[in-house]
């Protein structure tokens, strides 16, 4: 694997023209330096993700997981209800497709820690490099997020083309969809950061932790069934989870006629507000508010985890069982 480096950057590694020591270099180059770290990490992550095989196999790998998850639910629907309700079919297909993005985003950051610490044993070197550790980690995570996004898009396309998901491009609220997707990506990265903080402390077997965490969030995020089915305390947890609002937002923007994952008969939302389903502006505000809380919590947790890892020498630890 090779990573191309801009020749201009290499030239910048030499001594200053006047021959002395440029102390500004120890302070980094501000936003430009951060962007360069992010870009390089994202490029490296993409190379590591995609250079192991031929494009066709890579494509199959990227799509098989989310598509199978959607098919499991479609068959469950068909067995019980004969697949009579296309709106509910759209609900589960879109939910599982988006969830593959969540899974990829959460796992991306956490696995970057485990990859570099346990497998390649490079984490300590990356940590002491001049790049910001957090920015570098985000860059690595973006590559897996891109793979997850590809899987999600193809699952939705297959859902529309093969599984009978009703989709009308003309009625889609595109500006809202773009806004919600953007906010959602930010939330996914924040949750991923939280898992990265956990994996910095745990042993090699934590490969499965992101998947386990995503599986648990699946329960309270209205991904494959409306929250109204859940007991009230679990519905309350769902309402403070940003991913719930993200799911609702995407459905509201793209499948406005379909069932709401938050509202509906018997839901806590209906009891609290008296409205059948949240409005677009409510969804955006709720996503922003819960997203900010999760982001602050994730950054705090990551910094605390980073300090503890340094204290206890966990950055160059390797484990196994």
């Amino acid at each position, binding site marked *: 694997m090779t990573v191309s480096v801009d020749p201009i950057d290499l030239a910048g590694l030499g001594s200053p023209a006047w021959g002395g020591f440029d102390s500004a270099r120890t302070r980094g180059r501000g936003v430009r330096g951060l962007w360069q770290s992010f870009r390089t990490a994202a490029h490296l992550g993409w190379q590591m993700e995609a250079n192991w095989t031929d494009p066709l196999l890579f494509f199959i790998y990227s799509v098989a997981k989310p598509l199978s*998850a959607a098919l499991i639910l479609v068959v469950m629907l068909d*067995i019980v209800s004969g697949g009579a309700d296309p709106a509910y079919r759209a609900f589960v297909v879109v939910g599982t497709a988006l969830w593959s993005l969540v899974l990829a985003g959460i796992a991306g950051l956490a696995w970057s820690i485990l990859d570099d610490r346990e497998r390649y044993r490079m984490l300590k070197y990356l940590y002491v490099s001049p790049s910001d550790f957090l920015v570098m980690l985000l860059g690595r995570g973006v590559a897996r997020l891109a793979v997850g996004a590809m899987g999600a898009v193809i699952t939705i396309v297959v859902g529309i083309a093969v599984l009978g998901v009703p989709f009308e491009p003309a009625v889609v609220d595109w500006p809202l969809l773009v806004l919600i997707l953007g906010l959602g990506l930010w939330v996914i990265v924040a949750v991923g950061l939280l898992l990265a903080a956990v994996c910095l402390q745990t042993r*090699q077997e934590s490969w499965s932790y992101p998947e386990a965490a995503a599986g648990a969030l699946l*329960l309270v995020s209205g991904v494959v069934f409306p929250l109204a089915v859940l007991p009230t305390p679990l519905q309350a947890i769902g309402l403070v989870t940003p991913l719930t609002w993200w799911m609702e937002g995407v459905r509201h923007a793209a499948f406005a006629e379909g069932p709401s994952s938050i509202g509906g008969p018997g839901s806590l939302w209906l009891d609290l507000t008296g409205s059948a389903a949240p409005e677009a502006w409510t969804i955006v505000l709720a996503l922003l508010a819960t997203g900010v809380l999760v982001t602050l919590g994730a950054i705090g947790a990551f910094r605390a985890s980073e300090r503890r890892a340094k204290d206890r020498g966990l950055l160059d630890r390797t484990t196994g069982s």
Partner: protein
Amino acid sequence: MSLYEYRHTASPQEAADWTPRQQLLTDLRAVGGRAYPRVTGMFREISWLFFELLLPFLSTSAFVFVYRALQAPPEYVGFVVLGGAMTAFWLNVIWMMASQLWWEKSQGNLELYFAAPMSIMSVLFGMALGGMVMSSTRAVIVLVIATLIYRVQFAVDQGPLLVIVFLLTLAALYGLGMMLASLFLMWGREAFHLTQMLTEPVYFVSGLNFPVVRLGLLGALALATLPLAVGLDAMRQLAFVGAAFPIGTPPPAVEALILVVMTVVFLGAARWMLRTLERMARREGRLSVRWQ
């Protein structure tokens, strides 16, 4: 006399000429030694209690609520709970059996395994035993808690056969894991991605949350090749007698025989593959090449 006590020999060849008893005892110790870190590891770091017990239970619960949202018959909830418990074994097989030799190679342990005076099969048996202990804990807890919370009604007709089918499923699953360990080692970095590709797609074709017969030809293929599919179907037939779900798969006794055949084939193939791989690796000098 201790197994490793010094004995005077005339030549290195004579010293290396172990008796069958010495070989057997060494292999058994290797099994115990390889299982030990997996069992002990459970008590060294307790984060797994949260991530491996509580969270998988919540994940299983999500599928229970899908059936509840659809107002499905109660036995379908039982299917999900049983499937959720069995995923612990499948995840263990692909993550900690199939991928393990490749991990060991990346970490520099593999050459030590091959250089040690033991059968590499005993290392795989040890990994399987340790893994079974870990996964059984998770499976039992998910099964018990979910059964109590969601009031799953089991209707078991042939208890002993159910136990036999369960044990045969484990044997076939871990036999498959041992076989995949060699293949994954050969495939290298691709193995990591294959590990992920063997999760949801296998859940789907195995009928993890629904009767596999619903998948028609695909389901039949899964029954012929995947221990998870056969074992789950047989266990469902035995644990939910009289349940209203599509029938069309072979009876449990026949599926138990399929599992026996799978176990023999997978273990035999694992042994052959390991020997072939060892020969290839020695010839090409790739045992200590990492990260490929």
